[in-house]
C-alpha cells in the first residue's frame, strides 16, 4: 500500500546510531539480564570515546568492567557487580576498593529496586513502591531509597510505611534482541528481562538485533513483539552482537571468555592489551567477530528446537 512506501525505516548502522544518541555526560542504560547483553554497542561507545557517562545496568558485568577501564563511566547505578559465577571484575574492584585510578561513584540497589526504577521511568511515575529494604543497610548508603505512607489502613488499622525508589529515565537505552522489522518492531524470546521497561523509560533507544527480517515474518506472530516500533529510535543489525553472552536460538554463552576475564581484568596491562586488540584495533563488530575465528564461533553454535506454530485465525465469514 502507498503508505508502506512512504513510511520511514528505523534501520541504522551501529556507528551512526551511537554517534547520534550517546553524548558525554549522558545517562545510558545498557540492559540484558545475562541474556542478549548488547556488548557490541558498548564496545562502539568505547571506540567513540564517550566520557562521564552515568551507566545504569542491573548486572554490572564484563561490559561495565571494560567501559570503566576505557574511562567512559563516572557513575554506576547497579544491583550486582560481579562476573556471574565465573569470578570477579578487576577494574570495578580496583576503583571501589583502592580508588585506583579514581573512586567510582556507585549508586547501589537490589535487583527489584532497579526493576522498579525502570517501571517508574516507563510509566512516568514520580516513584515506585516495593516491599524491600526494611532492616537492610542499603537505604543508609543510598539516600534515593525513601519511604511513603499508605493512605489505606492495613488489617491492623495502621497506615503503614513502604519504601519507594525514584524513576530512571535514561537519555538512551540500549538492548539486544533476536530480530526486528525495518520499522523497529522488536521480537524476542527466551529471557526477556526488563528490556521493554528500559526502552519505554528512555528518551531514545537503540536496539541491536541478530537479524532484520521481513514485515511478514514479524506480523505472522505479533505477540512475539516485546517492543513496538514507536518506542524505538534506531534498530541495528549486529550478528553476534551479544558475545560473550548468548542469544537464545542463535549462539550459546562463551563460558570460556567469562572464565578468562577474571585473570585479564585482574592485571591492568592485560586489560589494556585486550581493549587495544579487540576494540581499538577493530573498526567495527564484524572485525571483532572475524578476530574470534571459526573455531570459537563453531564452539558456540546451537542446534534446533523450534516452537510449534499457533493459529491467529483469519476471517472467512
Amino acid at each position, binding site marked *: *500500500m*502507498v*503508505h508502506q*512506501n*512512504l*513510511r*520511514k525505516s528505523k534501520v541504522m548502522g551501529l556507528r551512526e546510531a551511537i554517534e547520534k544518541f550517546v553524548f558525554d555526560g549522558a545517562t545510558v542504560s545498557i540492559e540484558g539480564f545475562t541474556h542478549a547483553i548488547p556488548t557490541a554497542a558498548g564496545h562502539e561507545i568505547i571506540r567513540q570515546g564517550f566520557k562521564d557517562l552515568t551507566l545504569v545496568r542491573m548486572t554490572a558485568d564484563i561490559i561495565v568492567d571494560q567501559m570503566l577501564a576505557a574511562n567512559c563511566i563516572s557513575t554506576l547505578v547497579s544491583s550486582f557487580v560481579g562476573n556471574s559465577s565465573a569470578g570477579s571484575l578487576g577494574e570495578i574492584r580496583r576503583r571501589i576498593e583502592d580508588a585506583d585510578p579514581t573512586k567510582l561513584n556507585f549508586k547501589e540497589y537490589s535487583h527489584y529496586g532497579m526493576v522498579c526504577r525502570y517501571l517508574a521511568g*516507563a*510509566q*512516568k*511515575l514520580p516513584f515506585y513502591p516495593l516491599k524491600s529494604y526494611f532492616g537492610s543497610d542499603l537505604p543508609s548508603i543510598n539516600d534515593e531509597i525513601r519511604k511513603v505512607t499508605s493512605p489505606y489502613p492495613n488489617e491492623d488499622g495502621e497506615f503503614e510505611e513502604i519504601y519507594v525508589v525514584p524513576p530512571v529515565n535514561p537519555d538512551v537505552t540500549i538492548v539486544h534482541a533476536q530480530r526486528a*522489522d525495518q*520499522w523497529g*518492531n522488536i521480537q524476542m524470546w527466551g529471557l526477556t528481562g526488563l528490556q*521493554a*521497561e528500559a526502552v*519505554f523509560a528512555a528518551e531514545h533507544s537503540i536496539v541491536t538485533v541478530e537479524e532484520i527480517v521481513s514485515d511478514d515474518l*514479524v*506480523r*505472522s506472530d*505479533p*505477540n512475539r*513483539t516485546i*517492543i*513496538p*516500533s*514507536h*518506542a524505538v529510535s534506531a534498530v541495528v543489525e549486529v550478528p553476534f552482537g551479544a558475545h560473550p553472552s548468548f542469544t537464545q536460538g542463535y549462539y550459546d554463552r562463551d563460558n570460556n571468555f567469562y572464565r578468562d576475564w577474571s585473570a585479564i581484568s585482574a592485571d591492568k596491562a592485560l586489560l589494556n592489551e585486550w581493549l587495544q586488540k579487540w576494540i581499538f584495533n577493530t573498526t567495527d563488530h564484524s572485525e571483532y567477530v572475524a578476530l574470534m575465528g571459526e573455531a570459537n564461533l563453531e564452539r558456540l553454535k546451537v542446534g534446533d528446537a523450534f516452537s510449534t506454530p499457533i493459529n*491467529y*485465525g*483469519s*476471517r472467512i465469514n
Partner: protein
Amino acid sequence: METLNYSIDELLTVTAARELAGKNVVFAGIGLPTLAVSLAQETTAPNIEVIYESGVCGAHPSALPATIADSVLITDSEAVLNLASLFGYVLQGGRIDVGFLGAAQIDKYGNLNSSVIGEWDTPSKRLPGSGGAHEVLANAKETFVIMRRHSERSFVETVDFITSAAPDMARKEGGRSKARGVTRVFTQYGVLAREEAGSELQLTGIHAGVDVETVIKSTGWALKVHPDLQIIPNPSADELDLLRTEIDPTGMYLRS
C-alpha cells in the same frame, strides 16, 4: 466543475484525516476514527502507527473491525501489548500524539462526560463510563473529539459529570499533566479548535453551506468565532474514492 455528493460521516472522516497530517502515533476508536486514520495513512500521514485500547499496535486488518478487539485487528498486526503496558507505558508514558474520543457532553474547555445524565447516584440515564477515555485525555499529547450531533444538549456550559478532565481542570487541582487536552472537535457543522489548554474551544471552520448562527445556537455556551473563520474545503474526489473503494468498500460505517 461538478459538485460531489457525500454523507455527513464522509465529511467528518475527511476533515479529521486532514488534521492528522504529520502525526505518528494515534490512539483510535472504532468507526469514524479508524476510517480517518486509514485515510490519513494513505494521504497526509504515512508514518501513523495506529494503536487500540485493547493492546494492538500497528494494526493491518483484512476487514474493517467491528470492535477495538476484533480478531482481524490482531492477525497480521505489528505488536500486541497487555493492558498494563498499553495503559502504563504507552498512554501514561506519553507516547500517544493524538487520541480520538467521543462523549455525551463536552464543555468549552474540553471536559468530557461519558458517565451519566443527571446525578451520578440517581442518573436519568446511565452511560458506559470512562473506559480508557479518562486516561486518553489525561495522557495523549492532544485529543480529537468527534461529535456527530452538534446540539445544546451535548455542547454544554457545565457537563453533568466530569468523566475525563481537561488538563485545564486537572491543573486547578494540582495535577501536572503536560497534555494539551481537546484541540479539535469535529461536528456536522464544522470544527471547534484550540491550540493549548487554558483557552476556550472556538469555531475555526465551517462546512460549505453552514450558517454560523446555527452553530452558535446549537452550542450551550457562548461560542466564540475565530477571527479568520475558514470554510472547510469539500471532500475531494480522491478522498471520497479512497474511502468508498479501498477503506470502507462495503459501506460498513459510511452509508451514503
